[in-house]
């Protein structure tokens, strides 16, 4: 009976639950799905992380390459993020070139890397005008169950934190790089961007971390990226209008989420080192 009701009137079904301040999967409105983090799972990558946010699964692998810098920025390395939503992760996506959503997500990840300044591009320089690191941050969605943006940022941060680059020196005489793969150095991560997504339901109710089902019923979303104790990015692409009070509550929840996530990353990193 409940299943029929859910299939025929999904919106009514959700309303009945939300009246009691609870969601059909048993979560409260401000509750994220259980987050599982696995760091360093791919040994062919310089850094990697797998994130599960409920059923949403995202993997990030970081590959480093050497390149010559641009002439206008001779001492800057490159950070190249890319998000892939392959047909493997959901029947919504078709094979072929990256769709709109994947491109928007890639741009969002790029924006987060740029604006948060978590990695200084100057740190990726080996020899000005000659040799810099390129970090390819490839993020692969394996199972799409909503809120991929938050999972992407979390996997990216965790993968960057686990990245170890070999020591490279530039030989001026031969003009060739000399690699010492025995010496591995971690990246300098200057800050910790964490993203939190809120969904707006029926123009007034708000809840965090929507699943794919919830995403299809919402009337708008807000994505907030915090950078330690600062705000980094706030995105509210149209949808239902909100009051300043509602936005403020979101900010508070985003900062508390940031603390939860950073604790999770630290614990996972510690458990690997041991």
């Amino acid at each position: 009976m409940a299943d029929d009701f859910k299939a025929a009137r999904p919106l009514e079904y959700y309303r009945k639950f939300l009246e009691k301040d609870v969601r059909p999967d048993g979560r409260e409105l401000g509750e994220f799905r259980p987050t599982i983090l696995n760091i360093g799972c791919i040994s062919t990558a310089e850094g990697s992380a797998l994130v599960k946010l409920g059923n949403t699964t995202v993997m990030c692998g970081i590959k480093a390459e050497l390149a010559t810098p641009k002439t206008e920025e001779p001492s800057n390395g490159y950070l190249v993020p890319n998000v892939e939503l392959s047909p493997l992760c959901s029947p919504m996506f078709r094979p072929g070139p990256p769709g709109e959503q994947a491109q928007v997500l890639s741009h969002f990840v790029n924006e987060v890397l740029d604006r948060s300044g978590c990695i200084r591009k100057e740190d990726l320089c080996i020899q000005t005008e000659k040799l810099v690191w390129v970090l390819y941050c490839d993020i692969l969605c394996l199972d799409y169950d909503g809120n991929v943006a938050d999972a992407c940022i979390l996997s990216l941060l965790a993968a960057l934190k686990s990245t170890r680059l070999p020591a490279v020196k530039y030989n001026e005489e031969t003009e060739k790089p000399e690699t010492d793969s025995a010496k591995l150095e971690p990246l300098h991560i200057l800050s910790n961007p964490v993203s939190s997504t809120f969904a707006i339901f029926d123009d007034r109710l708000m809840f965090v971390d929507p699943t794919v089902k919830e995403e299809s019923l919402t009337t708008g979303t807000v994505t907030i990226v915090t950078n330690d104790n600062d705000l980094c990015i706030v995105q509210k692409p149209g949808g239902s209008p909100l009051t300043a009070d509602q936005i403020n509550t979101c900010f508070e929840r985003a900062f508390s989420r940031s603390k939860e996530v950073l604790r999770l990353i630290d614990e996972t990193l510690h458990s690997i080192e041991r």
Partner: protein
Amino acid sequence: MAGIELLSDQGFRIDGRKPKELRRIQCRLGVFKQADGSAYIEQGNTKVLAAVYGPHETAGGRGKALHDKVLVNCQYSMATFSTGERKRRPRGDRKSKEMTMHLQQTFNAAIMTSLYPRSQIDIYVEVLQSDGGNYCASVNAATLALIDAGIPMKDYVCACSASFVKDCPIVDINYLEESSGGPELIVATLPKSSQIVFLEMNSRLHEDNLSKVLDVAVKGTKDVYQVLDNAVRDHISEVAAFHKLDQS
């Protein structure tokens, strides 16, 4: 050969295996919720994910539909971070296209295609980390995913590779052994009926030795079958126990 000894005088391979020893296989079924069937397999350092969607209506109009059997659509893709050098294109290069075609041919032979006319089954394979034997791991993963999706097949499809070094056939070769220039034989079988559905060999091998290499490869597929079958049975009993709990 390029200075590395693939088989030591004591009869051990580079990674410490005996010539007829498989790499450790770890696998899990039903890893994802969105897909109708999914599986993850690790064969040594090769890690592969497979997802199956369908049977469903053919995508992109009726034109592609086959009137007497199901259309098996495969996509093989390698994550850009799966290899030592970064891959520029995860799919669409010649090698992936060839692999996609091989998978399609393999599973066309194993799935009971005539049961679902005018429909489509999608098999998506993603190599997350590659250390040789990508085709074999992909076939094994896809088999598990098809079983998880409940799609009728004639039998499991199990694949295994083999090579020939120093007058000795070696089974389930890794990347170093694959790239050393020796012969590489890949075979996929239906283990219960001992039928070969796919066989590929490259590089030079004396014909007298072919049967030896083929024998170890086929033996390898039977060993793989044992491991996969155990994994399926474990998974089913787990699911069944969970459902019983649910009902009581």
